[in-house]
């Protein structure tokens, strides 16, 4: 591949690596795993760069999301998650809430987790999520519904309630 391709690729990586790392962190729950996932995804994109260089984002996101699912199948990672759902009266500290959300997210199956991240973090539509992961729209709907239901059980939303009680 020619130098313009390389330059374009490196420019894209410089601009979007941070965003990719954030998505990868939500998908993997760990710093090292997130960096590893983004590296692998970007390396896998290189052979196809000449085809996608005009609009690389959707393809890169697709590789990232699918790799997050398939690597779990290969390595059978066992992320550490909460053994029991937290008590309703959760600690108010943001760090603790983030940790609870991180663990709750990790307790989802990899594909379910990817659906939740793509739908509610990346703001993709159901169809876009389905195309990214190579599954049906119906599966996206059911996985999103079940994923959120589990998250609500593990990490109840306190802020909305507190806002309600505080308002006169």
């Amino acid at each position: 591949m020619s130098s313009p391709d390389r330059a374009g690729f490196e420019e894209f990586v410089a601009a979007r690596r941070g965003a990719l790392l954030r998505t990868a962190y939500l998908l993997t729950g760990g710093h090292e795993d997130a960096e590893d996932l983004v590296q692998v995804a970007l390396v896998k994109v290189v052979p196809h760069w000449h085809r996608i260089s005009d609009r690389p984002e959707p393809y890169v996101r697709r590789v990232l999301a699918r790799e997050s699912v398939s690597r779990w199948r290969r390595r059978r990672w066992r992320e550490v998650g909460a053994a029991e759902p937290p008590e309703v009266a959760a600690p108010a500290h943001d760090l603790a809430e983030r940790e609870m959300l991180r663990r709750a997210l990790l307790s989802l199956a990899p594909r379910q987790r990817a659906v939740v991240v793509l739908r509610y973090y990346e703001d993709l539509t159901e169809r876009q999520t389905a195309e990214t992961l190579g599954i049906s729209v119906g599966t996206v709907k059911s996985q999103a519904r079940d994923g959120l239901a589990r998250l609500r059980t593990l990490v109840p939303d306190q802020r909305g309630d507190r806002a309600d009680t505080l308002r006169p």
Partner: protein
Amino acid sequence: MSTERPDERWGTRLRDLAEEAPRALPDPALWDRGRRYARLRRGGTAAVAALGVLAVVAVGAVSWQRAAPPAQLAPASAPAAMPDRLYDPSPWLTGTEEEGPLGQLAAIIPAERGSWTGKETEIVGVSATTGEYRFLDLPRQADVGVALSPDGRHVAYWATGETTESPNLRDGGALPPAGVAIYDSVTGRVELHDIATAHGLMASDLVWADLSTLLVNYAQYRGGEGDPDMDRSLGRNVPWQVLRLGGELRELGSPLDDGDVWGGGDGVVVMSGSGRNVGRWLVDPARPRQPQRLRLDRGSFVPPRVSPDRRRIAGVPGNRAPNRLAVADLSGDGRSAFEPVPGSRRTLEVIAWNDEEHVVVLRHDRDEVGMYYVTVVETAVESGEQRDLVVVPPDLANSPQFALDLLGGPIVEAVEPPDPMDPRVVVGLSGGAVVAAGAGILVWRRRVQP
């Protein structure tokens, strides 16, 4: 109350969590690693594809090698000779329509012929010059008997054809015989003789009296499709017919026209008579109205053969075979007595006389593991001394027909015919190799990691 929808709340919470993601660090080696990954992927793909191609080539090579004609084949100009053994033909041999005629034949063998949809019994010819085996593609062949001429140059067979009324269809809907055909094994030309018939012919016998005279026996079916079962299973007898090469089919004109032909040889046939003609008769098709009564001391025997000088007759007396070979002298005035030939207890049948002192018989033999097989043997009628001519493998039993005139000539080492692979297996294996290679490529491209 929060103004955010529930899904927007989750988006906010996830974005909040994502703030904990690691900071992006530059990695200038990514592009090069990507290139190496691309090379690895291409290399693996090429390797799997090459394996697939290799597998297809290997299947093709094995198939070609098994189908290749033997290197020891004699040229077509070689003198005609009988091979010293026959082989069980492969169902996947080529045919004369594809490869051309075999030339003078040493033998013909009924054998199963394979096709994409199954197998059918057809006729394999064994060349008397090259030793090749090939299916004989006989136009309009009905699935009943065939007869090889004594010199191996002609094959007579029953031919299907038009009927004037409903045909008497055979098993599987096949048309009945409606004529006689003679195939020239040297030129590949066929003489077709259609016979006028309402429902088809109940084929009975095709017998070569000599190398150019064919005796034909059949009946006319009384009914065809849609007729009562009784009519469909019965036939109206027709007198024996005679057909000379290049001539027309006509009545033999013998007073024994309702008899059976019991072998013969060298231009004459032995026919049985009924009524006032009961007994065995020697009939010369050239003089059919002057049959010679055979006065024999045995009433029943496996079909006999007459010596070239017509002075002796050889057969296997009795109703069972194998049995002892016996010879009777026809030259006396009284009843001819069969004299047993020493050491000939395992004789199945007499098929020819090589000269006035030697007959050719089928002998019943058993191999070292107890399997029965047939050997074509020349036997001296006085001493019983035997000389093995042709070994027939057990699977063929006594089904082959031989060019009888060649049994008195040189015997040559047989050439084993090719054993081609079933083409369906070849296609299946090749297709399987392609599919496996395709699947392997897919798996490789999915599984290979940078």
